[in-house]
């Protein structure tokens, strides 16, 4: 047993972090917030970098990596709030022509909601009767679709839950980092606020949530056990949403402004938490495994 990242995995993570730093920096994020649309150029660059074809065999033009590597890549996507139906397009590579290359945008209906409906070239599942809503997340357009949500039953379905959880872990890590760097700079009462126990303890709690969720998500990528994936999603959702709230608190009044990125993390985390296997169903799934 060696439950640490291997050398290739560390190199992959580093490479993806650098790539996303180039393709989607903070300026690009704020520009996208002002005009939310799938950036086709960015989508093709992601395709060219192997983001969608990551798990396709090399003889089919893919990268030939596995679910643990996909989890690392989606953690990075979550860190920078990369927008678009990334999970659905990644999972459709190999079955929907053009998805692997990033030429086609694929979305999927989940839990009575469908994201990016108007922007997608291909919609998996029935979006009949879809009604647009004013999405809480300015970077995830949403439609409501009628009918009760179906239980997750396929391998792809569980993989979608897991990759979404990985994005949540990335977001939780990012908000921890933002809170800590702000706490080290911002001065009040003649010292940086990171020296105050009340602030330190918020930050420590954020790290604990992130590490617990990360261990759960990475283990689930190895076991691919539905109960373990459900538990990982539950903890990752909680880490992303609670960390964003604590990060906002550490930022004080600044955190409540549109200019701070904290609200973008919180709103995306809410969407991801609701879109696939929300808490109640995740808890029921894990309970059924007892």
């Amino acid at each position, binding site marked *: *047993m*060696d*439950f*640490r*990242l*291997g050398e290739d*995995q560390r190199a992959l993570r580093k490479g993806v972090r650098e790539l996303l730093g180039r393709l989607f920096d903070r300026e690009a994020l704020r520009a996208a917030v002002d005009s939310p649309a799938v950036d086709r150029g960015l989508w093709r660059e992601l395709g060219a970098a192997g983001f969608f074809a990551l798990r396709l065999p090399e003889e089919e033009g893919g990268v030939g990596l596995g679910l*643990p590597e996909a989890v690392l890549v989606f953690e990075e996507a979550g860190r920078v709030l990369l927008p678009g139906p990334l999970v659905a397009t990644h999972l459709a590579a190999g079955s929907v022509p053009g998805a692997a290359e990033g030429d086609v945008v694929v979305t999927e209906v989940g839990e009575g909601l469908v994201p990016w409906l108007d922007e997608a070239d291909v919609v998996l599942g029935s979006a009949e009767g879809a009604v647009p809503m004013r999405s809480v997340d300015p970077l995830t357009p949403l439609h409501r679709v009628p009918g009760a949500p179906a239980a997750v039953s396929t391998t792809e379905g569980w993989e979608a839950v897991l990759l979404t959880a990985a994005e949540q872990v990335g977001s939780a890590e990012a908000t*921890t980092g933002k809170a*800590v760097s702000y*706490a*080290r700079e911002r001065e009040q009462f003649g*010292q*940086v606020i*990171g*020296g*105050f*126990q009340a*602030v*330190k*303890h918020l*930050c*420590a*709690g954020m*790290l*604990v949530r992130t*590490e*617990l*969720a990360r*261990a*759960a998500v*990475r*283990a689930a990528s*190895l*076991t691919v056990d539905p109960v*373990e994936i*459900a*538990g*990982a999603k*539950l*903890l990752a959702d909680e880490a992303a949403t609670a960390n964003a709230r604590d990060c906002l608190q550490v930022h004080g009044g600044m955190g409540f402004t549109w200019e701070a990125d904290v609200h973008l993390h919180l709103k995306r985390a809410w969407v991801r938490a609701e879109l696939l296997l929300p808490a*109640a169903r*995740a*808890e*029921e*799934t*894990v*309970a*059924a*495994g*007892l």
Partner: protein
Amino acid sequence: MDLAYSAEEEDFRVRLREWLAAALPTLPARPDPLDWPARRAYDCGWQRRLYDAGYADVHWDASPTQRLIFLEETELAGAPYVGANFVGLLHAGPTIAAEGTAEQRARWLPPVLRGDEVWCQGFSEPDAGSDLASLRTRVVRDGDAYVVSGSKIWTSHAEVADWCELLVRTDPGAAKHRGISWLAMPMDAPGVTVRPLRTLAGSTEFAEVFLDEVRVPVANRVGEENDGWRVTMVTLSFERGTAFVGEVVACRRLLGELARTARENGTWDDPVLRRRLGRLSAEFRALWRLTQANVSEAQATGGVPGAGGSVFKLHYSHARQELYEAAAGVLGPDALDLGREWTLDRLSSLSYTIAAGTSQIQRDIVAERILGLPKGR
């Protein structure tokens, strides 16, 4: 990233499992948990069995992964835990093994492994609490002995211990964290008085210890004089890093028992309670994965567990208390019956966020040592 165990590790697991299956049915009945002398005898008897079978030193000499397998298998089989040997096996032993001289290792380690000698921990003092370095127990050097005077509190297992890992101030003029030394003190030395403290669970598992000019040979000092704080940090990282590993497995077993009880008595039909058990199950599964991550790190670096132990302990101690709160919902009026093991364990779990460094201190450690936030209060 690999969760599979090597063939060698699996072989160790299989042999251990077979041995446990044969050994456990021959164990005597468990003693009354409030009767510490009986518990000492029981726990030391179990340790002797482990020694004879070649498993006694698994906490020190085995690889971190082997230790993980040992703790997992013994818990899954429902074997006794270290109990009264907690300090000897998980604190004092590893510390002497890491910092002691050859003579000290030869004198103190074998009796711990055989279950012949029990240790207690003389770190905390009245009024000091989590501020461990503010200790006042002082010594006067007299020839080849330190003459120790002062008092200790929260001394686990003092009532039944043969030895005490004792922190004393050897240089009162030095800065707070310097001038401390780590001594092995015999509990039967003249001048040692033990006054058991009764916990809220009714047990006397810890005590106050009064020291009135107790002579401790200078040869009993582990590490250099005035270097005891560093030695102590080694001890504490063992405590946080590995001492709780097996308990995660125990919690997963308890949660399974609880779910069976809930299905039998109908409380499982309550969705709020059922979902609560589901959430706890997710947390303990994740804590086990976090343990495997920490053990992999320790295995790779060969070092003692670092601040990662604090991350684990923060969530674990809270989750364990939540487990017993959920249990109360399943057990109903039975949760008020002190004759039930659950009830006693529920009371005991209240110490988890205090002992071995409070959750508040652990958050300081995480914030300062991992996140790099400045010291300060």
